[in-house]
């Protein structure tokens, strides 16, 4: 294997890892605040892709308008899911909410099959993202160049929002103590809704990029990335945004590089993330950057 081929794989790995990171952030934010694995997050990611598809093909919007509309719709949908399926269970056992989330996930997937059809759809790639570029001796499809850049821009924006704005402060406060946050006059339900909106927005961005990277859409496309990105969030330390990004990159790179260097293992590709998850849960359940949330007797 030459150095060029290695770089070729690396660029692919980084772009996949960045996509995973975008989705993982949504898991980590929701878990941080509600201690809930939003099982439906992978399906929201799928919807983001499909919304963009219909905006561009059926409604013939310019690509950037279509993308913005799709992202906005997905964010709204994420907020509605929280309101309908999770908010009524705020005082219920953790597992009940998780079951509700599993229900939402299956509902979206089967509705996807009903509405979008089970057959794969080819994503209409705008020219800007479909070009083949040559950097040095390696060929890159421009979307693979844009994905990490866009992921980075969103990450910086998110960091600003979380660390510098009052809403961000409220989110961080909520992740520790809902009741005291209420005592400060914070509208807890509203902040939670924002969090879902934000997570879904990032998932939509991920879904659109995914559509352009692997130019196919199908209703179950969110299942595997969804699971892997949750794992990414756990590996990085759930509740920690930088951790989620790190976890996403690790899983993306692990997946691409293992397949590249050990082609015999290609069939096991989807198992890597799960094996990594189990190792992490046993060795360091709080993840690479997670804080210890000790339970009191």
């Amino acid at each position, binding site marked *: 294997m030459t150095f060029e081929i290695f770089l070729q794989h690396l660029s692919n790995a980084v772009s996949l890892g960045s996509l995973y990171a975008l989705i993982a952030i949504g898991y980590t934010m929701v878990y941080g605040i509600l201690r809930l694995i939003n099982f439906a997050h992978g399906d929201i990611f799928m919807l983001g892709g499909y919304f963009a598809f219909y905006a561009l093909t059926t409604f013939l919007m310019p690509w950037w308008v279509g993308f913005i509309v799709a992202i906005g719709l997905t964010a709204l949908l994420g907020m509605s899911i929280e309101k309908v399926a999770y908010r009524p*269970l705020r005082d219920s056992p953790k597992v009940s909410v998780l079951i509700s989330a599993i229900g939402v996930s299956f509902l979206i997937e*089967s509705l996807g099959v009903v509405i979008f059809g089970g057959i794969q759809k080819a994503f209409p790639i705008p020219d800007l993202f479909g070009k083949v570029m040559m950097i040095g001796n390696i060929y890159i499809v421009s979307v693979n160049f844009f994905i990490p850049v866009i992921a980075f821009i969103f990450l910086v924006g998110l960091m600003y929002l979380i660390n510098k704005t009052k809403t961000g402060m409220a989110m961080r406060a909520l992740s520790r103590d809902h009741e005291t946050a209420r005592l400060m006059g914070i509208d807890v339900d509203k902040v939670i809704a924002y969090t879902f909106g934000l997570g879904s927005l990032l998932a939509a961005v991920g879904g659109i990029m995914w559509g352009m990277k692997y130019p196919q859409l199908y209703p179950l496309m969110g299942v595997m990335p969804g699971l892997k990105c949750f*794992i990414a969030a756990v590996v990085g330390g759930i509740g920690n945004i930088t951790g989620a990004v790190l976890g996403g990159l690790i899983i993306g790179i692990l997946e691409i590089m293992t397949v590249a260097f050990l082609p015999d293992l290609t069939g096991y590709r989807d198992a890597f993330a799960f094996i990594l*998850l189990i190792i992490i849960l046993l060795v360091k359940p709080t993840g690479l950057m997670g804080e210890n949330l000790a339970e009191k007797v």
Partner: protein
Amino acid sequence: MEREKKIRVVLTVTAAAVAVGLLVLFNLILDSYMMRIVNLCGIYITLALSLNLIYGFTGMFSLGHAGFMAVGAYTTALLTMSPAQKEMNFFLEPIVPWLANVEWSFLPALLMGGVVAAVAGFIIGAPALKLKDDYLAIATLGFAEIIRIFFTNMQSITNGPLGLKGLPPYTNVWWTWGIAFASILFMVFLFKGSYGRAFKAIREDEVAAEAMGINLFRHKMLSFTIGSFMAGVGGGLLGNLMGTIDPLMFRFLLAFNILLIVVLGGMGSITGTVISGIVITVLMEYLRFLDGPMDFYLFSTDGIPGLRMVIFSIMLMVVILFFQKGIMGNREFSWDFLFRPGRFKKNSVEGE
């Protein structure tokens, strides 16, 4: 008291006889499609009871059931298929020699399916049961996926993505319902006894249970391994009923159906699981028309694949949002209830 007890025994025996009579009758008059549904009911009761044991009674939320079913189904299939059948199946890569010429009869193969699934459950449980709630759910789901991925790739043992075809059709109503009855009896007697109470205590409060001298890990492993065994047997029955198995059959969707049965029936209720096992299985088949072509007089459609699953997802959500306790909560049906309507007998040991 003595008289009441006698009446109860008589009633129970009568009910069992009626159930057997019904099965005989079904066997005589129903066509093979309907019989398949009757069989599926029995299998799903066993499967749902096994999940209820792990989740509803012991409080360990596991999403790994499809994996144990796969282990049971493949083991039973490989042990019961004739060498000729195997040779036909494994045309890409020959089957490993130690499996090529094995041909067992159904019962030992089925039990072996359960045992191998139990071993898998034991191996998976040892690390995973240190986790709780959502983390346990995702870890067990991960293990089930790993099992499936391995089955897809171990060409010379499982025939990979092609799956196995032409399984001998041993599964019949006596097997499925016989095992369902055995599972029901097992659960009833388990929860009449001390171990069942210990499991429930763990569900209620782990810290207090351990302070009562219960070895948490040992008891969790017991419950999880027994549950895996039952899931393996259920998987074996299912495989031989279908006649064909492949790794895609054992996706999370399968675990979802079983979870739906448990949640609808009531977590921690044996009777609830039996009722909802039958209801859901029948609905699942009945609603198949939704996925097929439909004629609404005014207009007709070519069928909307996926609509059935839409309904099941909505069902699960409605139950968890509005009827968290399911049909039975954690109560059980008893004869006293029939005699004194409005008063469910509490799930206790006093009926001895």
